[in-house]
């Protein structure tokens, strides 16, 4: 089971956090600080795994962003690495050549996407197409809602003129 997902920039700035196991706010801050200290200082040729408080943190660096996932001792680390990659690929498809800036300004969208890939700390969908389809459906609905709102407000503004 995945206990949390962290996205940290190389400067140690938090880009995304998702907690699947309960952590209090204070604890979260501590975890982020502890892990970013540990992971950012690791050399490029070492393992992508770190043992931490009886768990394992699997991380992978993409350009200037570190994607980290904390898993149980008995989980398959290589699989987790691929889950991270799976997530990044889907982000890439969605944003079109995703870069850190996309995630900074659209972190909520990244959350929506993550919610379609992982649920309750488990991989729920391994097909990129299925995820993309669902996200697209949501976006379409959101667009429709926006248009509708606009038209209504337009009508009201017309009426009250």
């Amino acid at each position: 089971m995945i206990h949390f997902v962290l996205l940290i920039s190389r400067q140690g700035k938090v880009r995304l956090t998702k907690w699947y196991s309960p952590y209090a706010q204070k604890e979260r801050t501590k975890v982020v600080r502890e892990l970013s200290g540990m992971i950012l200082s690791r050399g490029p040729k070492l393992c992508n795994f770190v043992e931490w408080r009886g768990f394992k943190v699997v991380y992978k660096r993409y350009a200037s962003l570190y994607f980290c996932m904390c898993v149980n001792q008995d989980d398959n680390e290589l699989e987790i690495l691929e889950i991270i990659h799976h997530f990044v690929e889907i982000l890439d498809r969605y944003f079109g050549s995703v870069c850190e800036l996309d995630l900074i300004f659209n972190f909520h969208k990244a959350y929506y996407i993550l919610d379609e890939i992982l649920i309750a700390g488990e991989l729920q969908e391994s097909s990129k197409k299925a995820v993309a389809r669902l996200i697209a459906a949501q976006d379409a609905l959101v667009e429709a809602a926006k248009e509708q709102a606009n038209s209504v407000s337009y009508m009201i503004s017309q009426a009250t003129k």
Partner: protein
Amino acid sequence: MGSQGGFGQSKEFLDLIKSIGEARSKAEEDRIVLHEIETLKRRIIEPDIPKRKMKEYIIRLVYIEMLGHDAAFGYIHAVKMTHDDSLLLKRTGYLAVTLFLNEDHDLIILIVNTIQKDLKSDNFLVVCAALNAVCRLINEETIPAVLPQVVELLGHSKEAVRKKAVMALHRFYQRSPSSVSHLVSNFRKRLCDNDPGVMGATLCPLFDLVSVDVSSYKDLVVSFVSILKQVAERRLPKAYDYHQMPAPFIQIKLLKILALLGNGDKQASGQMYTVVGDIMRKADTTSNIGNAILYECICCVSSIFPNTKLLEAAADAISKFLKSDSHNLKYMGIDALGRLIKISPDIAEQHQLAVIDCLEDPDDTLKRKTFELLYKMTKSSNVEVIVDRMIEYMININDNHYKTDIASRCVELAEQFAPSNHWFIQTMNKVFEHAGDLVNIKVAHNLMRLIAEGFGEDDDTADSQLRSSAVDSYLRIIGEPKLPSAFLQVICWVLGEYGTADGKYSASYITGKLCDVAEAHSTDDTVKAYAVTALMKIYSLEIAAGRQVDMLPECQSLIEDLCASSSTDLQQRAYELQAIIRLDAQALENILPLDASCEDIEVDKGLSFLNSYVQQSLENGAQPYIPESARSGVLNMSNLRSHDQQETSGHALRFEAYELPKPTMPTSRPATIMPSTELVPVPEPSYTREIHQTPAVPSISHSGSAELKLRLDGVQKKWGKPTYSSPVQSTSNSDFQKTVNGAAQPDATGSTKQKARDVSHDIKKQEVEIPSEKQRLAASLFGGVSRSEKRQTAAGNRGAPKANSGATESPHMTKVATSSEPSTVKTAPVQPPPDLLDFGESTATSDAPSTDPFKQLEGLVDVTQDGSAANSGSVATKASDFMSLYSERPGNVPSNLIDPSIDVNMSSGLLNASNNFDHGAGVVAQSPQSANKGPNLKDALQKDALVRQMGVTPTNQNPNLFRDLLG
């Protein structure tokens, strides 16, 4: 579908993000965020906020929270937003609450109603959003409120909904297995779902279920095997392929389940051999995902009933892992070796050099994994080297968590395999000295027990030798500063018990030392208590032996001080000491006999010595005693307790509307327990209470037990003997279960803990016995000294440190001599590889991306750099632009705050990735896809322009922000 267009937020918010991005210190960031919190606090309570504005506020709250600040003031607004009708807002609301609230938060109760409503929505997207929230927010208490609807959704027409419903049920199962135990058949049903996504999701709960109770899922072995076969034969839709592997995540999950089902079951395992073998043969070892599957296969092979062919294949795979230059694969190789070694202990032999390399590796993660492997292959012949290594490593690390871990491992190994008493005591001293405060206090108790009981042989001289060597070493250590408390307790106890036993040290010497300890650690009451009791023992032993006792003056003053101590425990001990040493020799011999700490003190629980008194009273007309359970009108204790439980659950909130009650409900309720019984309007408290209690205390006969039996069928699992079954359930090892069943029935529930420990001990023994047998066989084949060959594999190469430890018995010495020679020869060739390693590393890093088909789609950059003119010319023309972009970057670097070396590394990595990628076919085939995304450079520039346009000027501080994540 790209949304790279407008970011859709107000300028204010973008400014916030930008200023955070530019903050140069954590303090500055905090200042900005605190200011933002103030603003939001003010704004969010304004009346009549437009909904879109509110949505942005909520997202800003999420942002604040993400940066580690408390946004609790806004939680309620996020909750309100979930009530909104528009999906746009609802979705934001759900996102925010799932990020903000832990499942025990008070506000959840306000969301449950909305969730209930949304689960019934016609719009499947609303249902999906609600199910996402269910997975995060619903706790044990609120499960019944949504359970019926979630179960209903298992049959929803949209696969996305079915999948999430399965996951939600899985979550419920994790939270409270009893709440859904009657629903597990649904998981079996969903396994046959048409949609592979739903089927894949179902594997998660099934894995959990199987790991708890293997036997009831044996019938699924065939299904799992056939699914796995189909997956491996690419029968699933192409969409599930990942890097040219057919549905690898599903394969891995299936292999995990099969590993559990086949454990110790020859017949079930037999059905798996073919498919696992096929997968191993087909696995693509050049890609990361292929290796992930291969690793999972090894895990499976080492768990199921052994099969020679598969074991050979696994050993081959492991040696490939270990020989790889990638640290990740080495790590997996070491881990896999640790698994396989239990079955075929001799495979470690060929990898000894690789293992030693990993042990010396600068990468801490790899090192720790290697220690884990060593721990698994420890035996009496190599225990010294391994434990010495472990302790050496333990001393040098700061990570308390791991320190605790490795310390307890050292203790365990030392207890099991210690070659000599002397070594054992020395080792324990070292462990305690360096990690005494971290190890479980039980370890200290164990050590005391061990010293008291000896090693179990009926050899008193060995035991007394052990004791006197312990006393010797403790007296030497005792003066050192900063000894951990637990260690001091052991020292005091041992000195008190055996300090004067062999007559080497006088009582006054020992008592003097004990007084020193008590004085030096005046803040530690426990140590002082141990010291005083030790003093008492020594004095009374002296008196009992008929010797004159002169209390040292410092000792006297210590006792007087303690008589006035603020700790009542210390006071009592001091007074007791004063009282006891005034007694005569005979009394003392009875009170504190010599070396009787392991003798059982029998407590007469039946208070039989009062029998005559009772008899007498009865004869005088007293009322006979009525056992508690037989007393009518009085609830017995267990009843009371379960009553309390019932009370709490009875007080749980109800989630259904008031109109529902139907008078016929209670009688028409089916015999299986529905979780909604609590919702029945007129709950009869004792009704369910008995269900709680009867299985747990089966001896109690109740009038209604017969009809209750019916209901028990469904719930047996959840309530049956919780204390006993839980340790069994927690492990997946069937060996374990067998020993539990076979070894001994628990005589009392209280002793289960003890038993569990014993059992695990047994397992260790078993594991060890197999290797030692094989080892002897191997040794005889090699014609070496028995057991010695094995050590070469594990630790022989480290003959040097062993030689240091010196003073061991003669067979050891000879072994060292024989093994050290080959070791030097062997280590010599190890030296050159570093160069190779260095070369290899770069290819290794590019290894994974190189086979990444997705990148082939994305990376027009890569194509251009590759210059593999096979592609369209237009792309090639862009190459020069691109190169300039890349070459520019290093130029920029020095002016920025970025460490140039890393940057160069990065870009070289990118180059590598692109160089390795050489077929353009994929790109052409998927061109519509890539056209959608556009060339990277253009894209980046567009983004840049957009950002500038919005006034968020990227200050060039971090060009990395614009770099595509996938390279």
